[in-house]
């Protein structure tokens, strides 16, 4: 595991949620809100179609951190703002930059985007490197 330094970019995490991802995440999480699993319902309430669960997208931001820092025990905190609507079958990219390192804790600023659409903004993670 490489120690993160201030100014470092963490490796991008790139994932394309497949057509049935929201169904699997609904089962795993218990969140069966029809905006995530029912195409007709989602369109009927004005959405472009079924949308990704925000907490699934946040989990991708978390995974980018733990993969960069060396495992689940490194992630001390993560805060995010949910912005745009995430869609299945479109590439999601998580990027992050180390803002500072103090007393072995790296603070990372991150975002998650699909093309020009910012799904998660102002994400801040604290990674324990001690």
């Amino acid at each position, binding site marked *: 595991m490489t120690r993160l330094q201030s100014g470092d970019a963490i490796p991008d995490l790139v994932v394309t949620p497949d057509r049935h991802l929201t169904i699997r995440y609904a*089962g795993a999480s*218990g969140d069966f809100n029809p905006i995530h699993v029912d195409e007709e319902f989602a369109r009927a309430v004005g959405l472009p179609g079924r949308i990704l669960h925000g907490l699934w997208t946040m989990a*991708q931001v978390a995974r980018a951190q*733990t993969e960069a820092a060396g495992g*689940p025990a490194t992630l*001390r905190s993560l*805060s995010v*703002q*949910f912005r745009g609507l995430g869609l299945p079958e479109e590439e999601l990219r998580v990027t992050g930059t180390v803002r500072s390192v103090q007393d072995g804790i790296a603070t990372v600023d991150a975002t998650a985007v699909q093309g020009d659409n910012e799904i998660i903004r102002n994400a801040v993670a604290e990674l324990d490197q001690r």
Partner: protein
Amino acid sequence: MAERDGPSHGPRRHPLTGTGPAVGYRQGVSVSTVAVGKTFAPTVYAVGREKIREYALAVGETEPLHLDLEAAHRAGFADLVAPPMFAAIYSSPAVGPALFDPDVALDFARMVHAGQEFRWGPLVVAGDEISTGVVVQDIHEQDGKGFYVFTSTSTNQRGEIVCVGTWTTIVREG
């Protein structure tokens, strides 16, 4: 205040402004702050090995600690380790009733999950029993929107706080 059965109210003062209960009507969003400080009876979630695996696969985890029992054992864990974001799973049974509480009076048709924070303690492993309590942290109106903030505190069977979650929902103008 005497203890009552079921959900109880804490101090009804707004934690930031110190004002008492109020109902504001402005720009089409009415925000009742009567529920600020209200707490809810803790829920207990038993963490299962296959639920961790199912969750880990759904979020695309490749970390062996979440998927491979032998790898978890070799690393000194009693069972599979839950990914940090599994906090969303063990705390949601506690957060749900707070969201639906009639005193909170969230308008679900116009509500969005706007922000989320988790702060983690010791890792959670399969076999743990996680108790989660929720408090209505803050309700306020700003720029014509209603902000509703809930805090969940999750504790394992040894009394260690494994996660504190801050859940922010916004109700937009109608």
